[in-house]
């Protein structure tokens, strides 16, 4: 069976869900970040898949978008991790449930 676009999309959807799972069900801050990275990766996969299966244009738009996305997600991961460290220094915890000072 030749993999169709559909199958790639389903795979990316699954990856996305797993990322969501990781972000929602873990209490450690780093796991949340991991989850976010996974979701981003799934989105990238989507873009590339669509680029490959769609009409080819002059510029490889899908690819470029994926590139930018990777760059940005890397930056965001860096900052996020810095935040985790800063929070850890201050509150001595990485448990996101304990960071509820904005509770209304």
């Amino acid at each position: 069976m030749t993999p169709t676009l559909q199958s790639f999309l389903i795979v990316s959807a699954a990856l996305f869900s797993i990322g969501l799972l990781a972000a929602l069900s873990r209490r450690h801050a780093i796991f949340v970040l991991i989850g976010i990275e996974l979701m981003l990766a799934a989105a990238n996969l989507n873009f590339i898949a669509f680029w490959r299966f769609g009409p080819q244009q002059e510029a490889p738009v899908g690819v470029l978008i994926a590139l930018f996305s990777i760059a940005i997600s890397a930056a965001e991961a860096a900052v996020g991790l810095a935040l985790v460290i800063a929070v850890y220094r201050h509150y001595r915890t990485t448990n996101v449930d304990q960071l509820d000072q904005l509770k209304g």
Partner: protein
Amino acid sequence: MSRSIIDHLWLIPAAPLVASLVILSLANSRRKSAAALAVAGQLAAFAMSAVAFLPTLRSDGFRSTHNFAWFVFGEQTLRLGFILDPLGVAMLLMISVVGLCIFIFSVGYMAADKNFVRFFAYLSFFSGAMLGLVIANSLLLLFVFWELVGLASYLLIGFWIERPSAAEAAKKAFITTRIGDMGFFLGMLWLYDRSGTLLFYDGGRGCLEPAGLAMLGGSATLIALLIFFGAAGKSGQFPLHVWLPDAMEGPTPVSALIHAATMVAAGVFLVARVYPLFSWGALDGVTPSLTMVVWVGVTTALMAALIAIAQTDIKRVLAYSTVSQLGLMMVSLGVGGVAAGIMHLLAHGFFKALLFLGAGSVIHGCHGEQDIRRMGGLRRSMPATFATYAVGMMALSGVPLFFSGGWTKEEMLHVAANWPPSRAPYYLIAIGVILTALYMTRQIIYVFFGSRRAAAKQAHESPPVMTLPLVALAFCSVFFGVVLTPAWPWLHGYLTGESVRFDPMRLIQPIFFVSLALVGAGIGLGAWMYRKAGAQDGDRPAEIDPLEYAQPALFRFLANRMWIDELYARTIVAFAWASARMSDWLDRRFWDGLARGLGAVGRLLSIFATGVDERGINAGVDETTMGARGLGRLLSLAHAGRVRVYLGVLALGAVALLLFYAWLD
């Protein structure tokens, strides 16, 4: 010449009025100035009246008018005017002469009074108003002066303001004459409505001239009666006579001037002035209004004369005498003897003033005593007063030949005897003549004859400033008669415009003997009945009147003025009080309650509004804010503060959105 006189006729009343105003501005201490001003004003009026008298001598039936427009409203003009005619001028002269004598008398009489200045101000005011009354050519102008004279009377009767009885008397006088004035006013309005003018003589258009009278038609009688009602009030005719005797509360010069000679004469004068109205459409010289005048006059004359017999106050006797004489004058006018009535009016003015001033002199000499039972034998201690008083008494009684009163009384009997409808008035006034002589004899015996009683023991003659006017008036009372005799009825001709000639043969008329008999009977009867008045006589004590001793019930009836005042008090006055009380109750309970009810409604509304505001609006606002706060609290629950929650909600939302879009497809 006469044109300029008539054009300046208004100066005659103006002089005393101006004097009055000036005196009012003077301080209380400037007595000499006040008296001098008043007398000067009066002298000026007399002089001008004398000047005005001259043109009227010329022609028969002289009448000259000066009319002017007073104010214009819309298309109608209200015109007033002055008239110069024998009737008016004769009155002017009498008023100014009598007034002058009384003013001079008052200087002495009121010398001890501390309100001297005010007295002369009021006297001058009265004099001016009275003078204006007699020369008015318009019923409205006459009414204006009429009211002013009434005001002066009120002020002067109540002159001694610290005496409650004086204030009461002034009030009574004013109100009683007011009732009469109501009739006068209504008659005036009606006249104006029918004839369109209130001027008496206006070159043919006046309301007393044939053209004007014709416009009245049948209403002439009623108008005349209404005007007569006003005259009756002012002249003290029955039933409006009750104020006159009470008016004796005022000082004696006031009684002399106002309530003997002049103001009360205004009613009679009014009837004479508007006589054409009364006699319009006369058959045989008789009209319904004139008949009414006759009967009212007769009633008044008899009634007052009877009451006078039983009065013990020296001034009251004279007051009722005045009422009686005015009634006689009205009778005379009613039966057609206008000239006779006016002649008696003029003569009466002189001798009644004389009698009142004489009484004033007696009171002054007896140091304020006014009860005749406590006087006596004054003819020796007050000879001048006695002599002049005797002259006045004889003139009033109608002693013929020497006294003016005799001639006028004779004339009046004459015209009454010739009244076509009935001779009853003639007989009745004959009785009145006897009674007049009777009560005057009684009074003079009580006061001047017999032994000295009580206050009379220290009596002394009055000063010349008081006795000289008495002499002057006595002189007039006698010599005025010269122009009244049938031998030379000059005054009669002057008033009526007929020509007269001097004829000594006509001096004694048949009626002369009738008059002589009546007067003699009266004086004789009086002298006999009261020969021992004031002194002990057998069983009768000294203070009891002989008539009282003989007929106590009758005497009491007459002494209490036939209970007429009491009747009025029980009926009219009581009714007025009841109305006033009812009005007061109505105002206090009903209207006040209504107003309070409205106020309560207002208050109720405000309570309601407050309630709505507090419970409703405030509570509503409070609830709303509570609700907003609650909602806010509720909404703030969404802020869990935990990242995972946020993320979860986000994811759920995204899923939901996705589903929604899928469903849309």
